[in-house]
């Protein structure tokens, strides 16, 4: 057991960080948390080092494979940017220390690390709860904001119901198949007529993750959450839970070829992208707009799950990567734009090209990426999804997805238009070198990986193909 612990390195490292943060919160003094960002950069290195690791841990409930390691790297990347982003967080409630805030962020990310490797249903469940509960605490930490509290309550109630239903579903699976190990479940018969009960159970279990993904019709919390909570927390809530949800969904869907379930997912996906895009058209608050755009992106991600082929699942993994990069970039700009911590409306973007040229560029790249215009990673990801979906009986979904690009472009284009064509009404934005650097490297990532995705796609498709029994 102990000799295999090096496989567990990324988790151990984060647990170590959590412990240090925990002791910091105990102290009465408000200690500096500057070290955390550096520590996380080392963590990225650790993750990169353990990318090729492979093995089983903890009585076969915990699988280290290439896919899990990739998602861990992604989690670390997201966490690092989120921590850097939250360095200022001007609206943090007065009684809360920085270290408290970071503690819960790291705990939530730890849950995502666990999620990406768990292959036993109850382990998954516990990891999910760790992720969610830390986030429930983070959301209302915005001083004097009833909206943040409202968002937190909504998020928690929805979450509680969704996970409860999920657990209920697990009982069905357990009743039919007498096991909770995904490896054993994969060998069972998942025909709808043969095991109706367990398919229903699995559907309910999937629901608790589709809720995390904010797929229609489990999406109601998402715009409220984005708008209500502080910009920094919104960044975290927009990006991180999606990583955890998708990895579990990929693992679950990879062994269930049940057409009925897929058809339902396909219908949800189609509704989700259309609904999200249409409602985003009329939003004034940029974060709320992004909340609706997330709903439509959830639809795109589910599209790859619907196919369930190696190519499809690999495309989903790639799309999550794209989604994380683009959202981090656009939220980075928004957070730095609302410097006193207020929400940013579309009008606030006016003349950004003069107030902060680099941010305007990053905003444009991220917006075009989210809209799926080449040559960005958003287009590449969407293209892979559409290609892998075509010819598997869901051609109608491909057409709906393609048409949705036409709807979505309006509101993304609006962001760019405000940033580039209107004259500024406010003074120049004070930006420092570091924040420009982070923003710029994110946008370079969006462009370069969009043009040269070969290596990452290859890695992902190979790692997904190992999932199949």
């Amino acid at each position, binding site marked *: 057991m102990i000799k295999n612990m090096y496989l567990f390195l990324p988790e151990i490292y984060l647990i170590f960080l959590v412990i240090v943060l925990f002791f910091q919160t105990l102290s009465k003094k408000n200690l500096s948390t500057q070290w955390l960002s550096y520590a996380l950069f080392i963590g990225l290195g650790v993750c990169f080092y353990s990318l090729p690791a492979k093995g089983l841990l903890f009585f076969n409930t915990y699988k280290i494979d290439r896919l899990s390691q990739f998602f861990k790297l992604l989690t670390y990347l997201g966490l690092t940017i989120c921590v850097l982003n939250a360095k200022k967080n001007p609206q943090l409630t007065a009684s809360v220390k920085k270290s408290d805030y970071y503690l819960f962020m790291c705990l939530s990310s730890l849950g995502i690390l666990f999620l990406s490797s768990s292959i036993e249903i109850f382990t998954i469940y516990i990891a999910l709860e760790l992720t969610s509960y830390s986030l429930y605490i983070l959301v209302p930490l915005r001083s004097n904001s009833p909206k943040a509290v409202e968002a937190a309550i909504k998020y928690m109630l929805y979450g509680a119901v969704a996970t409860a239903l999920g657990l209920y579903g697990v009982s069905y699976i357990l009743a039919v198949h007498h096991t909770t190990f995904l490896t054993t479940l994969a060998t069972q018969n998942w025909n709808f007529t043969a095991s109706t009960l367990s398919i229903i159970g699995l559907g309910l279990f999937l629901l608790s993750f589709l809720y995390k993904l904010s797929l229609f019709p489990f999406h109601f919390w998402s715009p409220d959450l984005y708008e209500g909570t502080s910009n920094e927390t919104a960044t975290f809530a927009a990006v991180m839970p999606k990583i955890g949800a998708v990895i579990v969904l990929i693992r679950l869907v990879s062994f269930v070829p049940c057409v009925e379930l897929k058809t339902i997912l396909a219908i949800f996906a189609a509704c989700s992208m259309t609904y999200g895009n249409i409602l985003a058209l009329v939003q004034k608050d940029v974060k709320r707009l992004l909340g609706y755009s997330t709903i439509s992106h959830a639809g795109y991600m589910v599209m790859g799950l619907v196919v369930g082929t190696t190519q499809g699942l690999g495309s989903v993994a790639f799309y999550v990567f794209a989604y994380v990069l683009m959202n981090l970039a656009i939220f980075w700009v928004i957070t730095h734009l609302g410097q006193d911590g207020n929400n940013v409306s579309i009008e606030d973007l006016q003349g950004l090209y003069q107030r902060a040229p680099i941010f305007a560029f990053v905003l444009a790249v991220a917006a075009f990426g989210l809209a799926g215009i080449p*040559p960005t990673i958003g287009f590449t990801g969407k293209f892979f999804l*559409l*290609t892998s979906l*075509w010819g598997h009986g869901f051609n109608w979904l491909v057409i709906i997805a393609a048409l949705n690009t036409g709807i979505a*472009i309006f509101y993304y284009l609006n962001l760019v*238009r405000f940033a580039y064509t209107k004259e500024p009404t406010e003074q120049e934005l004070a930006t420092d070198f570091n924040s420009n650097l982070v923003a710029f490297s994110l946008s370079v990532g969006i462009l370069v990986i969009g043009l040269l995705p070969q290596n990452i*796609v290859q890695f992902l498709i190979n790692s997904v193909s190992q999932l199949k029994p």
Partner: protein
Amino acid sequence: MVETWPILSSLIFFPLLGVVFLIGIKQEKAIRIITLIISLIEMGLALPLLKFQLNSAKFQFIEFHPWIKQFHINYHLGIDGISYLMVLLTVFLLPLCVLCSWNYIQKRVKEFHICLLLMTSACIGVFVALDLVLFYVFWEAMLIPMFLLIAIWGGPRRKYASIKFFIYTLAGSTLLLVAIIAFYLKGGTFSIPELLKMDFPFHFQFWAFLAMAIAFAIKVPMFPFHTWLPAAHVEAPTAGSVLLASVLLKMGTYGFLRFCLGLTPAASVYFAPLMIVLSLASILYGGLVALGQTDMKKLIAYSSVAHMGFVTLGIFMFNLRGVEGAIMQMLNHGITTGALFMLVGAIYERSHSREIEDNLGLGKYLPAYMFFFGLFSLSSLAFPGTNSFVGEALVLIGVFEKYKIVGLMAVPGALLAAAYMLRLLQKLAWGEPSKGKNFTDLNAREWLYLVPLGLLVFYLGFAPKLALQTMDKSIQKSLIKVHTVQKSSNINLTLVKKEKDID
């Protein structure tokens, strides 16, 4: 074929390199001069293209590198007779665009020139891409700089025009993406030359044609999809209008030629009557609406609709003369309409109005200006001896060869062109009362960008042989497939007839 120097790649990426270079420069004058130098170097880089072999229908100057192996996407470039002239036109127009915006663009000069260079890259990319995905990437990427050109440096209604342009073209091309994916699944490759060799079942061609044709028809633009064009043209800055008219619109007709005729010949034949009717509608409608315009730019924009109608009409005749004429017309329209937009821009710099009423009677005061305006107007109405005459005549020959009735209906379109262009010319030259007294005639810079275009008008008007030679072989090759389809359907028809006769 081993190519030591990647000519086409250098044409695509050199402007991008120029963009990187421009970012570091502050002075406006320096930016203009450097962009001009970049565009001249770009022309120099295009010189090796003159080695193009005329008597071959093959793709030449091929470059091939694997790009994304898992999805069989390659970086595959090459040109044939259909795209060759379009590439040359794009490269040729870049320095002229820089020159014609020398005074016109006064704000955010650096961004403007960056957009111009990005546009050039993407436009060349569209014409030389031999991989469907690569083609689509360039096709869409080109929207972004064009959107910015209209939205930032445009006229008073730029917001409306830019968004309409973007959404219209993007919405059209979403289905093109679906068609591309469908071709991949059906044919197993994204490579255009390989797909061109395949035959697809009619049912598949039917839907693929529709999906592609909407994208291309919007870009051309054909009659019911044309509404974005006048708005975009009127609001865009001069260089934007020139690029829009001369290069962007050609992408639509290029798409028809390369993809609709090449990949879905049976469906093209099937839909030809519809396309012919829409082309006629474009010609007549564009001409009639142009007749009633008071804004010079709008007038020329509607004349574009009519001219492009001739192009699509020629394409869907499926005979050598018709398609030859169509490509010639594409080239001619690029030269003539581009020049007319430049001239309107030039007079706008003087009178600050594009209304015909504000620019009456310039003949006396601006003789050189009126000379060029007259020249290009005559070319626009296809006066014999100018370039457009060759194109339009070829198209009409092609049409009369095939359907006399259609030809008879297209001829009034040509007459309408004379009516609206001569009306414009007459008012501009002799109208009363004239404000031209205070205006100065063309300066050296304006001569510089008008003379090459003027020379081309005469060159293509009197000696179109070389241009026609470049395209003949490629056209014949692409028509072979269509003709086999037509023949087989004719045989079927005659068989049915014979059977009936026997009965």
